[in-house]
């Protein structure tokens, strides 16, 4: 292994007894990005966050992609005793298992396969030729062995032992080679993913496969839309319905065409069947301006109902009932915010991107969090804000119910962040970051010219922030400690540690000294 490591500071006396996991992108199948079990970091001590360690991995970035959000599992029984392990996937078909306490690589897996016949256009940021789906850690089997499900760039699913990286099963085909699958989700033995951008000829659809099915039948639902490119793939509700946003396209129920909306599909027998969908009434406007619905929803319980929030580049948030998304006409949300940002109607560097988040505080208040890019809309006001926002911010809403009507009530807007990315929440603290990524896809002199080299060159560096979840006040900023930007990465948090991988294939671990 040619991995170069430099451990800035080895954690001293790491607390391994906390027992919190982050087994999937977005923290859980509902993609709330809420770490309920955080006990170390809190509002009072988060100001003392430091880079506990950073680890240079030998993953080679492809286009703008590099490291995907780490998965965390605590108390993993290894040959050397129980360990807290971070699983990090790299786009060049690498899986790293890192001992969180020592920042040592416990094992590494590199997937090899013959080059697929098709791949994305070189320099195209949309279609990197490699592993693109964040893996998922499955529940332990009877022996306590925990599987890591990882999809290689050729579309094969590998089932790896979390403890040592050994294959627990023979690989099997699930996705499309170089097809740009999004983060895996796992529910009742079924793996889900979504695909977008038609990379290498891949259809844009929801995919499912039962890991216990000996035939490994691949089940799909195709909404006949643009790409399903919610950053953390599909979110799964309590009935096992996988909800995924659909990119630009038409809405025509007569032909089962569901562009610019949100579709929910469920495994029925051995098929993936559409259960419900939501299409904004202004879908044609969204399509005409390339404002795709492309944000992974967050699903949560509130006052006996299971609700869901979704969003788009247009920059508004929809509150939906998972049991009847969009109501009888599939187009009426429980509530819909005004335009939070993107007054310019820009398809590239404004709007809501990635994923949403939700959590509940000790008083039972349900919160919804959203990142956005670009300036805040001049007509949208938050009761609490923290200075002018021109590059992006995280915003918080309270979910309220009155007389049976549900509403999203604006609560606060964070400080300006250079392209705010999906936040995570733990113990009353919101962790967010500005990616520092250059997101321009079109230029005055050339028009559309989305190319990785230029965007990489013009990107800066990410900044991690910790915010008071009650009011958005900044509690911590990493300043210029992170040296590179993040594209399609993301935060993970467990047991007093916050993780972020950057384009230069460095994994940063933030925490408190001695904790």
């Amino acid at each position, binding site marked *: 292994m040619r991995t170069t490591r430099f451990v800035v500071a080895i954690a001293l006396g790491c607390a391994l007894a906390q027992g919190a996991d982050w087994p999937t992108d977005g923290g859980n199948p509902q993609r709330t990005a809420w770490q309920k079990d955080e006990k170390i970091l809190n509002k009072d001590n988060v100001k003392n966050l430091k880079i506990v360690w950073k680890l240079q991995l030998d993953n080679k970035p492809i286009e703008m992609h590099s490291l995907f959000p780490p998965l965390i599992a605590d108390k993993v029984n290894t040959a050397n005793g129980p360990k807290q392990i971070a699983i990090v996937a790299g786009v060049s078909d690498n899986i790293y298992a890192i001992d969180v306490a020592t920042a040592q690589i416990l094992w590494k897996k590199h997937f090899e396969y013959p080059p697929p016949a098709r791949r994305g256009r070189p320099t195209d940021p949309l279609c990197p030729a490699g592993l693109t789906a964040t893996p998922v850690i499955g529940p332990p089997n009877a022996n306590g062995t925990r599987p890591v499900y990882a999809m290689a760039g050729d579309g094969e699913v590998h089932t790896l032992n979390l403890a040592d990286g050994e294959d627990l099963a023979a690989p099997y085909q699930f996705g499309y080679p170089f097809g740009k699958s999004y983060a895996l989700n796992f529910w009742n033995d079924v793996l889900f993913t979504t695909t977008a951008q038609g990379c290498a000829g891949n259809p844009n659809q929801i995919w499912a496969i039962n890991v216990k099915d000996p035939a490994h039948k691949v089940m799909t639902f195709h909404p*006949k839309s643009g790409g399903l490119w919610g950053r953390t793939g599909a979110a799964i509700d309590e009935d096992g319905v996988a909800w995924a946003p659909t990119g630009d396209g038409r809405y025509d129920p007569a032909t089962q*065409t569901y562009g610019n909306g949100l579709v929910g599909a469920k495994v029925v027998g051995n098929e993936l069947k559409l259960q419900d969908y939501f299409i904004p009434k202004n879908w044609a406007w969204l399509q005409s301006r390339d404002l795709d619905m492309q944000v992974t929803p967050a699903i949560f319980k509130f006052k006996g109902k299971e609700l869901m929030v979704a969003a788009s580049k247009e920059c508004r948030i929809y509150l939906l009932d998972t049991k009847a998304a969009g109501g009888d006409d599939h187009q009426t949300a429980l509530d819909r915010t005004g335009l939070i940002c993107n007054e310019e109607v820009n398809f590239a560097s404004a709007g809501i991107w990635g994923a949403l988040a939700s959590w509940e505080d000790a008083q039972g208040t349900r919160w919804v969090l959203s990142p956005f890019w670009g300036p805040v809309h001049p007509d949208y006001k938050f009761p609490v804000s923290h200075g002018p926002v021109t590059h992006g911010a995280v915003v918080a809403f309270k979910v309220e119910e009155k007389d049976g009507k549900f509403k999203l009530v604006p609560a606060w807007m964070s400080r300006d962040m250079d392209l705010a990315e999906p936040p995570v929440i733990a113990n009353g603290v919101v962790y967010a970051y500005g990616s520092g990524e250059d997101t321009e896809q079109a230029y*005055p002199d050339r028009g559309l010219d989305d190319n990785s080299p230029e965007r990489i060159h013009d990107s800066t560096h990410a900044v991690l922030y910790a915010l008071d979840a009650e009011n958005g006040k900044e509690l911590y900023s990493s300043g210029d400690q992170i040296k590179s930007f993040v594209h399609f990465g993301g935060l993970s948090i467990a047991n007093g540690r916050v993780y972020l991988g950057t384009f230069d294939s460095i994994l940063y671990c933030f925490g408190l000294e001695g904790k």
Partner: protein
Amino acid sequence: MNPKSVMLMAVVSGALAHAQFGRGGGDWMVAGGDAQRSGSVRVDAHLSVDSVEHGIMQTLWKLKLNGVPTPPVVASRIITYKGFKDLIFISTSTDTVYAIDHPYPRIFWENHIPYNSLLAQVKNGTPNCPAGMTAGLSLATPLAPPAPGPGRGRGGPGRGMAPGTAVPTMPRPKRTPATVYALSSDGLIHVLNQHTGEDIAPAARFIRANAKVRDLMSVGNVVYAGTADNCGGVLNGVWSVDLSDNMLYEYKTGDASVIGMAFAQDGTLFATTTEGLLVLEQKTLKLKQQHPGAFSTSPLTFKSGEKEYVVAGSADGHVLVMDAATLGVVNDVAPGGKLGSAFATWEDPDKNRWLLVPKGNAVEAYKVSASGALEQSWTSREMVTPAPPIIVNGVVFALSSGSRTAPAVLYALNLASGKELWSSGKTIAGYSTTGLSAGQSKIYVGTHDGTLYAFGYTLPRE
């Protein structure tokens, strides 16, 4: 919701679900819409006789500009550095070119072109020789109209669509900056970046300053223009400049003012003057043929099967249909009254060819047979100096241009019957000298007081 609104929603939803956008469809590239000066939009997603009858037409906005506007040109789904835009480009007598971002409207950019000539600038014009920029704008106009076809690519499903899935309906987005051609009053031809309004190359000398320019048109990187009334001492004639080498070509017409121009699909250029119809070679403007007579309208051309016709109106009120190859007159009708400055033509889905003629105080509709024969069909309601009409998907938009005492009124008529479907009523405050443009379900009217009005349908943002 009232029953009318419900019906309109049903009509619009149906139109959306089954809309047929042309490839690059719905753009209005030059005065008269295209190189043939058809004055028509072949297909439209929302405007139809049915939808207009059910109330789809709205007054969308009005915008005050600096100067007397020329007819705007329209380009849709441009991928700019500020997002996808439908842009309307318009010039005014003050040598200002605007790009207007529909549907707000917002000025996307504004370029006031400084006067740059050794000849003194004419600042106070006359009714016959107005001062300032007189030429409308042109986009790069294809020689032949594009075949209707589905759009695809960014902003549409495009890649990743499964075989057999529904046809996407949005027109193909324009990925690279196209150009706007503007002839400023100093006689320089400017090639402007549609995204920024900036010159993409040094402006080239084209025509002497202070000319009265008619029919600026860019086809195949060659820009054409006609001059009239010897305004500013500029000779009357047809002019062209090849922008690949800035070579200038001209065909002088002496005392005859150029009225307008149209291309046949093989590149032959027809130009009407006050003394005849000229047939000129593309770019070089060498005379191939001519037909004597005092013409008063721009020509238009259309194909019927393998045959191509050119239609033009004479000063004594005759509409002449001529074989484009021989200039033999195949039909000659006199609707009565003075003819307007241009006609419009459209082929309906049943392959019936229509010709619309503004004359006197009305618009007259003719069916055109395969042999070029004209059969009078209907005459519109009365109008004050009807402007050249346009046809959008079977709907005729006719403008009563008005006068100093009667403001302009826009009417929508059923092409099949002439029945009035809608009118702008008292919305327009002034009179119009600019005529009509259309694109993406919108109709644009400029008035002499510098106001641009937009009517039609826009996708609901909410």
